[in-house]
């Protein structure tokens, strides 16, 4: 399970995230048979998630290592109505230096160039963020397509994507039209996603399923599969704006779909849980789930992202505790 797929093994030419290149998922034709035969048993999925925490434990040095890795997988995010240019610059500065240098030194990882995986903003601030991150490898991700409800006209959504790409966004987090899923209109979902992907061009596209709106795990599984068929580079749980955010059961179902897709097509698709992941403990649970279900390879930022705003502060406290043996406080760490 822990075998790492080496860079470029799958014959890529496109530059990957952080230079750790894998082939992008080109998508494939919509196969409805395959979508419709998907079965999910909710109780069994929940049982797996409940017991997993007791089956795997990451403590001490291992925990510090895992949390540092989680930072590199973090889409440091601000998606609020009161965002401003200065707020976004502050976020970018934190993305460049997410952990106090003295802590990194003490942990023996000062030389690893640890940054967050990306910075995630609305289109309006893409250019500002690209500028603020100049000289780093940190990509800017833009939420798009009428985020969060996704009910703008289809053409407007495509123009929105193009505008963000033109402003320098290298990743686009799109939202799907929930109606397509709720009514089982897989063709419409597929077509929409196909268009989004095309509009993204070289930029990677993360498909937000808004699982809280989809309600059932079966819907989540089928929507995941259709979006991957239509060429999503990542599938992502939530906008953070639905009433229910990322959960382990939803994630487990999506990961299983990623594995099926890989088995059938050979393509690797990334996963991004978002919303409600605010503690180091939470993030470790997701990392364990990734490792157990998909393997070591899926713990790197080109296949795993965490959409989070307050998570980093908790991880910083845990890391300081690991270094000093004393519990830490928020005011000891620079804010984002």
């Amino acid at each position, binding site marked *: 399970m822990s075998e790492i797929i080496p860079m470029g093994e799958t014959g890529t030419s496109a530059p990957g995230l952080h230079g750790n290149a894998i082939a992008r998922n080109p998508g494939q034709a919509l196969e409805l048979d395959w979508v419709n035969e998907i*079965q*999910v048993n909710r109780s069994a999925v929940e049982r*797996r998630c409940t017991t997993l925490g*007791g089956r795997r434990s990451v*403590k001490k040095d291992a925990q*510090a290592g895992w949390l540092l890795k989680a930072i590199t997988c973090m889409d440091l995010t601000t998606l609020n109505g009161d965002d401003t240019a200065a707020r976004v610059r502050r976020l970018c500065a934190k993305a460049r230096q997410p952990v106090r240098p003295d802590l990194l030194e003490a942990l023996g990882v000062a030389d690893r160039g640890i940054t967050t995986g990306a910075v995630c903003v609305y289109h309006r601030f893409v250019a500002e963020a690209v500028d603020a991150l100049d000289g780093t490898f940190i990509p800017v991700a833009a939420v798009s397509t009428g985020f969060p409800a996704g009910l703008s006209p289809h053409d407007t959504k495509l123009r929105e994507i193009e505008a963000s790409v033109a402003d320098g966004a290298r990743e686009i987090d799109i939202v799907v039209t929930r109606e397509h899923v709720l009514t089982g209109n897989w063709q419409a979902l597929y077509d929409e996603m196909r268009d989004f992907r095309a509009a993204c061009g070289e930029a990677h596209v993360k498909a937000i399923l808004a699982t809280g709106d989809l309600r059932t795990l079966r819907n989540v599984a089928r929507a995941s599969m259709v979006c991957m068929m239509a060429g999503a580079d990542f599938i992502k749980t939530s906008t953070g704006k639905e009433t229910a955010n990322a959960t382990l059961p939803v994630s487990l179902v999506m990961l299983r779909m990623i594995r099926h897709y890989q088995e059938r097509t050979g393509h690797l698709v990334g996963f991004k849980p978002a919303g409600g992941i605010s503690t180091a403990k939470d993030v470790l649970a997701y990392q364990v789930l990734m490792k157990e279900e998909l393997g070591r390879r899926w713990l790197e930022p080109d296949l795993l992202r965490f959409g989070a705003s307050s998570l980093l502060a908790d991880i910083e406290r845990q890391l300081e505790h690991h270094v000093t043996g004393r519990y830490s406080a928020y005011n000891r760490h620079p804010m984002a």
Partner: protein
Amino acid sequence: MSVANYFESLDYGPAPEADTNVRDWLKSHDASFGHFIDGAFRPSKDGKTLSTHEPATGDELAKIAQGSAEDVDDAVAAAAKAQEPWEALGGKGRARHIYALARMVQRHARLFAVLEALDNGKPIRETRDLDIPLVARHFYHHAGWAELQDTELADHKPIGVVGQIIPWNFPLLMLAWKVAPALALGNTVVLKPAEATPLTALLFAELAARSGLPAGVLNVITGDGSTGAALVKHDGVGKIAFTGSTEVGRIIRAETAGSGKSLTLELGGKSPFIVFDDADMESAVEGVVDAIWFNQGQVCCAGSRLLVHEGIHDRFIARLKERMNSLRVGHPLDKAIDMGAIIEQSQLERISALVGKGVEEGAEAYVPDIATPDRGCFYPPTLLTGVEPASTVATEEIFGPVMVAMSFRTPDEAVELANNTRYGLAASVWSENMNLALDIAPQLKAGVVWVNATNLFDAGVGFGGYRESGYGREGGLEGAYEYLKPKAWAARKPRKPAPPVPVVEATDSFEPMAVDRTAKLYVGGKQVRPDGNYSLTVISPKGKVIGEMGEGNRKDIRNAVQAARKASGWATASTHLRAQILYYLGENLSARTGEFVARLSAMTGVKKSDAEREVETAIDRFFTYAAWADKFDGAVHSPPLRGVALAMNEPIGVAGVICPDEAPLLSFVSLVAPLMAMGNRVVAVPSERYGLIAADFYQVLETSDVPAGVINIVTGYTKELAKTLADHDDVDAIWAFGGSDVSEMAEARSVGNMKRTFVDNGLATNWYDPKVAEGRLFLRNAVQVKNIWIPYGE
């Protein structure tokens, strides 16, 4: 490894659970324990000891006492002394104590969990998250039964002193399953934990005493099989509850035969795990992990036979193998493992040998390339594919982390393969089609069926087997009855000796009837001549020859059982139909009252009015069971999950019935009718002396629409026929009434296929008293409870 290394490797790293508190507790006892008798530890009378070891390292954990018959005497005496005051405390008084035990377990949960993991070798995850919380749950639940006993179970009383023998695979959990109901309902206990895992029971006894449990109520006696044997044989014990191998269960059944001891046996299994092509395959794969790699596969109800629909077999197996690659085996106190150590070397060798045998017989073994500790007793998760039903590994219980896989084509074939075993403990069915899953579950011969789940347990849901997996239930109301006896039933007195068979008068002819009637046997819905073609003479009390009846032999029993087996439609016939036929039997018997009264008077010499009363009561009894046929419902349990457990009362199958001489018509009807009402097929052996009454009954049967094979009657010498029935491996239950010798023989000979037994031990039943001779006791003995767990949620 450094933080930087982990940053790259993302390995789990060590995550050991501390064992300091457990080591301190052992030290406080100098790592040496006596029996816990009458509230205190005491050494064996003969000073003999045994050792218990950590399977994970082989190191000795502690010395324990080796119990002798003398020690067992002491323990039983202490329990007997404590029983009366314990019972007199009343349900509500005992409820306080049982509640205190539940709280005690919770307060010391981690101590128990770590000690259990060390002594047994199972992962701390399991002891901490499953075993110990369930232990507490059992005491809570049964504190509730104690609380309600005086009102809800008012017509029952405790059995007295109960001997309980538990296995090493779930040491403390099995203690809870047995001790909680026994104590709650007013019994006192002598418990013998397994030789390999006695420590949590000793800790429990110590802490129970500290939490105020009166001395002598719970006694723990340690030792090997000989200690258990002494307990089984002990006259002062009213009941034996045993969980363990079928082999030992058989010995216990034979040993206690005729003793009047009640018996609960929780034995082995080879449970099917059935995956249909519309299952959530990923979840089913995870289910396999929980089925066979839980507790290293050392689980009596482990899903150990994987039956996969042929169309998805290869994909499923491929995915399962992949899943196996991420299993982790390690020290039980490591918090990042799936499997710990096997209990002991001999088990490890047995598992290896069976896997070797499987491979020899053509199976292909898959063992993932994962690390196992260098030291200690470990066996890797193993999958055997290409296994045929004829393979040794498909029939033998391996009791280790070894899954054997087969495929099926249709749902019918899945059921056939699933039931193709001597065992019947549990089954797991995976399908997203509710119609399919709920059609399959009742067809499986198993006491527990999990739909889209496996290895779920709860104190409120009965657990126990069909067939050679044992009998009796543990948990819920169905389990509570195992520790009680009906007051009316308990008041029976020994049967008076039968009057001597009269000497036949010199005139050796009997009064000729207008037209000769030949009493044959009744098999498969037809009157048939006995195989041997001999007849027995029936004599009146005055020595008059009244007539002749067929002398059935082994072959007649064989034929009758075959006919009964064939009449399987009765088991699934609607309860409405069964009720109608029972009413009809009563009606047609009523129409012939005069004829039966005359025969009864002539044969038994009773007054006409008494004979009339017997026939009248027999008619009533048919009506009673016709009434019950569609009312003895199961239950819907509410275990703590989103879902239900359906406790279904299922017929046992083919039952042999041995009838007593007294009230020959009424006793016959009283025994046959409840079995029929619940959907069983019957092979009845009527009173040896007055069997003609049953022969008269053939015409009632023939006119009452009873389907062929549902009732079969073989007249003849009781003992000879009873022996053949008790021996017969296709008979599922035997009810023997009439004499203690017949009871003993029926129980002793039931061990071939571990049939359920219901006997009178020579105590006389007043067949006219409905409190004793009809109702729930008979109905409970006529069914076996199957619990179908159905978690739901979309």
